[in-house]
């Protein structure tokens, strides 16, 4: 056997040494210290409100992809459902915490209640029709067609959020909180509610203006999407939205606002600030034509 030249061996060794990456020193690992327990926080609320499944439980299949798309549409509607929206709002601007927060119309409490009887005799509202109404009245756009991927994704997301929730059952936290469950008890029955818009303006300046802006037109990010949603103006919800009625907006404000301090406003403050917000211009209800608006204006 012919002896191998030492130079070839050296060349081979050098090639291997260059090709194989040098083993680095192990990366610095995130060192997070333990927090000293300052305040004891209750860790669970058994039976208080329904807990939707965590995001990591979304199944890894095609149905799971649809759920993920639904979540994206829900949290960033102007980007992922561009062709159906007419303003800058996302679903999660009102259905807070990605449709999970009790008291902010959570999806897990709504899903099992549909189809439900509508306002007119013989009318039945389906969940899909309700989503179309949201797009039409609250986002000033077009309702997604029943067979569109956007509609499928949103329905899939709502269904997944209500995994394990009982169907056709009034769950705690459905819709906005009722007045009875908030501090202060049931509202006193008044023949005609009187709202003070000027007091609402003061409440707005102290409680709302820090986030939504003194002009109420919201705060935008660098990419022109909204960090804090506009409360009035052309980029906000229209007159056909449920939140364009003072009692419903007052309930929403009282249950959820200021963000993280829900329930801290009094009934009067919430009513007045809702009246102030709704005294500002916003897109009109698409169901009301210019003839009817003209007739109402002349009354």
């Amino acid at each position: 056997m012919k002896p191998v030249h030492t130079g070839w061996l050296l060349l081979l060794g050098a090639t291997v040494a260059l090709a194989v990456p040098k083993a680095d020193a192990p990366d610095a690992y995130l060192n997070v210290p333990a927090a000293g327990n300052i305040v004891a926080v209750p860790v669970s609320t058994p039976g208080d409100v329904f807990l939707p499944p965590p995001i990591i439980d979304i199944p890894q299949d095609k149905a799971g992809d649809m759920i993920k798309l639904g979540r994206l549409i829900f949290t960033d509607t102007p980007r992922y459902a561009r062709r159906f929206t007419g303003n800058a709002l996302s679903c999660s601007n009102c259905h807070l915490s990605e449709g999970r927060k009790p008291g902010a119309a959570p999806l897990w409490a709504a899903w099992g209640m549909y189809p439900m009887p509508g306002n007119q005799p013989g009318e039945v509202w389906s969940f899909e029709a309700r989503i179309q109404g949201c797009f039409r009245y609250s986002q000033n756009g077009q309702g997604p067609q029943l067979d569109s991927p956007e509609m499928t994704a949103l329905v899939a997301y709502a269904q997944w959020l209500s995994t394990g929730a009982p169907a056709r059952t009034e769950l705690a936290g459905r819709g906005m909180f009722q007045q009875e469950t908030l501090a202060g008890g049931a509202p006193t029955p008044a023949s005609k509610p009187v709202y003070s818009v000027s007091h609402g303006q003061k409440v707005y300046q102290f409680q709302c203006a820090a986030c939504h802006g003194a002009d109420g037109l919201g705060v935008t990010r660098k990419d022109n999407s909204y960090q804090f949603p506009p409360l009035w103006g052309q980029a906000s919800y229209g007159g056909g939205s449920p939140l364009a009625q003072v009692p419903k907006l007052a309930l929403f404000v009282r249950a959820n606002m200021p963000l993280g301090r829900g329930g801290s406003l009094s009934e009067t403050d919430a009513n007045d600030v809702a009246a102030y917000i709704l005294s500002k211009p916003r897109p009109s209800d698409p169901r009301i034509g210019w003839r009817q608006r003209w007739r109402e204006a002349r009354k």
Partner: protein
Amino acid sequence: MKLNTKIWLGVIALIGAGIALALYLPPRTPPEIIQARQFGAKLAQQGRGDIPACIGCHGAHGEGNATAGFPRLAGLDVGYLTRQLQDFAREAPQTGAHFDPVSRDYSKTPRINLPYSILTPGLRRDPVMSPIAKSLKPADIEQLAQYFSALGLTAKPLPGDPETLERGEDLALRGKPEYGVPGCFSCHGQNAVGVGAIFPSLAGQPPQYIIEQLNRWQSGARDNDENGLMRAVAEWMTDGDKHSIAAYLANLSYQVPAK
């Protein structure tokens, strides 16, 4: 006639080109702000009298100290930095009845007839930072804020425990809706880049600093938040939540360009 038309077309084209150039070029930084940054840089790097140099603890480029838990200052908002230094220096308001040595006529004094006037400016007490902030003049505070807000920063995410990071992401995006706690990003901005002077950037802050501040919100040692928002959020956070969110925020990749 023809010459006139050509001249006018040329003038219009020049004006249009000027407008396009003005829109394309970035806005010019005012010279007084540049000067404030220079004065701030001198004070931050050298200190003065009994004021130690800021870079000793907060890093040569304001990047903070992850080992000791000193916060990063680079790229934070001017208004936020100013307000924090003012709140460090502020003493607790006097409580109890106050009597004037000479009686005065208050009938001409404008009054704020609002129930909200009971709100006091917030305090932020710290054994190290409060004495330093008290010896700063108002101009120093302004200049230091201008200097540190103009610094750039590139955060270096560190690998961490995936389950902790997943829980941290859950808190950052969704919060704890069953307790009415919003996610961090709903106020502090997408990826916690900060929103205005009220909501500071959290990305790239040392985890020790985040946990320490959450503890202070809970204990009341820090109460200079807008409208009591952060206090209301912090009092629902368990030790595990603080740990998870600190790990996640320190793990975010974050870049802010130098101004």
